């Protein structure tokens, strides 16, 4: 086999320029294949990793959305949760909220604003005042710079404001960076629990499924059950929350790009194949003498066919390897512009080699067969 490869390499090396031009199609085709697969694989890889982060492996999220913009009360109740937990394959159900803050009215004298508010975090950097963990009884509040300015213009510290009718004393002011998300006010943990937490509707039911259970089926069953007996079915809609929702659009664009590159790859490979066939025809007719000699010295017609087939395959595989290298470079460039990392998997390499081999075999077959079938006496008359 190695000597057969050497024969192939030798005769390819003899016509480097011609063969390189023939390989161009393969190179472009395979480089495209590598890019498609790298982008596709990279995307899937990122998606799966993302899901892993959110522990999506064993959980389905059911979403409740209000039908009316004015009445947003609703969500899942404890009864709903029990109903969902009764679905076969469900391990347990957790109700959560997609919004982290409560809505409230803040008032100072005649000015009043709708604000978002939450329980105070462990740490918070203040621009004014000192930060400490407040008790429920203290009725303190931390407000954002922005809200402080709107309510008091200046000197907000230690002033009193009313939030939903309860009086709070401003303990400190914090800055919200442009890239940062924070509510307008923080109150003590216990205060928040007592007065505001019930306001935050549980609009998500996280359904943890048993190993081996189908998330898809359970998701469907859960939505169906909620549509029948959900306690807030009148005020809202239930649906399976799709974590890839945002990426859907992106996937579509990606698919378009993929089809486009695949199209280029297909065309290049077809043109490449025709080029290979052409160059193999030329090779065969140039080497009639050689074929005659080999036949006279014991080569069977299948030896000859194999020789040219191997040559055609080797030509394509060399093109394929150059294509992979080019593809690798392209992928590195593409990676600079992608929000995820395109990866070249072993599968992509195997596929590229297989495609190259297939092109070599398919388009090399007819010329090789011609070589194998030539009449011996005629061949030996060639010079």
């Amino acid at each position, binding site marked *: 086999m190695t000597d057969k490869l050497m024969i192939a390499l030798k005769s390819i090396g003899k016509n480097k320029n011609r063969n390189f031009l023939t390989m161009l199609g393969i190179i472009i085709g395979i480089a495209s294949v590598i890019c498609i697969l790298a982008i596709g694989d990279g995307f899937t890889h990122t998606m799966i990793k993302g899901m892993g982060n959110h522990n999506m492996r064993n959980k389905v999220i059911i979403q409740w959305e209000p039908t009316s913009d004015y009445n947003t009360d609703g969500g899942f109740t404890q009864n709903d949760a029990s109903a969902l937990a009764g679905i076969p394959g469900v391990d347990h159900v957790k109700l959560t909220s997609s919004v982290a803050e409560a809505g409230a009215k803040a008032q100072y004298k005649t000015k009043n604003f709708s604000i978002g508010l939450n329980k105070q975090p462990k740490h918070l950097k203040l621009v004014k005042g000192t930060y400490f963990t407040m008790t429920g009884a203290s009725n303190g509040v931390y407000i954002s710079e922005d809200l402080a300015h709107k309510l008091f213009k200046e000197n907000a510290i230690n002033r009193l404001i009313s939030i939903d009718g309860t009086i709070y004393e401003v303990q400190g002011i914090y800055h919200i960076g442009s890239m940062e998300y924070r509510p307008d006010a923080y109150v003590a943990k216990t205060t928040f629990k007592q007065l505001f937490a019930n306001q935050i509707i549980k609009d998500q039911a996280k359904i943890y499924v048993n190993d081996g259970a189908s998330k898809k089926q359970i998701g469907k069953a859960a939505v169906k059950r909620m549509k029948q007996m959900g306690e807030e079915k009148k005020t809202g809609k239930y649906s399976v929350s799709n974590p890839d929702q945002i990426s859907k659009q992106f996937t579509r664009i990606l698919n378009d790009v993929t089809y486009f590159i695949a199209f280029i790859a297909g065309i290049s490979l077809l043109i490449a194949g025709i080029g290979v066939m052409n160059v193999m025809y030329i090779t065969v007719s140039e080497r009639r003498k050689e074929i005659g000699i080999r036949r006279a010295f*014991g080569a069977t017609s299948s030896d000859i066919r194999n020789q040219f087939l191997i040559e055609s395959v080797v030509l394509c595989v060399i093109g394929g390897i150059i294509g992979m290298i080019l593809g690798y470079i392209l992928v590195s460039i593409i990676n600079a512009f992608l929000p995820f990392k395109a990866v070249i998997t072993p599968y992509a390499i195997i596929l590229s080699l297989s495609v190259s081999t297939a092109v070599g075999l398919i388009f090399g077959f007819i010329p090789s067969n011609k070589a194998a079938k030539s009449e011996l006496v005629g061949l030996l008359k060639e010079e």
Partner: protein
Amino acid sequence: MLKVTDVGKTYGKFTALENINLEVADGEFLAIMGPSGSGKSTLINILGLLDQSYTGEYLLENKSYKDVNDNQLSQIRGDELGFVFQNFKLLTTYNVYENIEVPLIYSKKEQNKKRQLVADVIDKVGLKGKEKNIPSELSGGQQQRVAIARAIVNRPKLIIADEPTGALDSKTSKEIMDIFTKLNQAGTTIIMVTHDSEVAEYAMRTVYIRDGRLYNDEKSVKNHD
């Protein structure tokens, strides 16, 4: 070694060979002479199993190969026969060693054995030190030695040579014929086509072809005329 009975060959309406009867014994060295276009090459192509479309019967070692398949024919050509051609027919991009190795590529011998066989014949035809040269770097005589080495590397029983000295001067022709004589003395049967009666002298026996017909001596050819 071989027996030809009533063999004929036509190209369309043209009769290239007619009524050929010939017997060659083991160990014989036969020369075939005749003018250009008389059918010499046509005949030895049949004898060398290179051409299978003829009429009549041809037995090589008492066996007819008329109806055997391509694989078996190739095997016989590779193992039992050795060809030498007028214009050497070497692979121009392969070096001496690689050219001589060609018949071995298609025979099932182990690599070491093959190397040994090539080294032996290179020695035999006096090309030591030229293994790495390509044909264009050799003289005509040296190229024909390469061709002979290639023909004998697989130790064939029968060598078929079509004008082996046709492209060589008389001194070089003599050297080549000395090699042939030695091979023949070592037991190889040789059938050689030649124009040159001096070259034919080396053979044990000479037959003559004229217009596709075979004659056993020059006199009968003249009588025929």
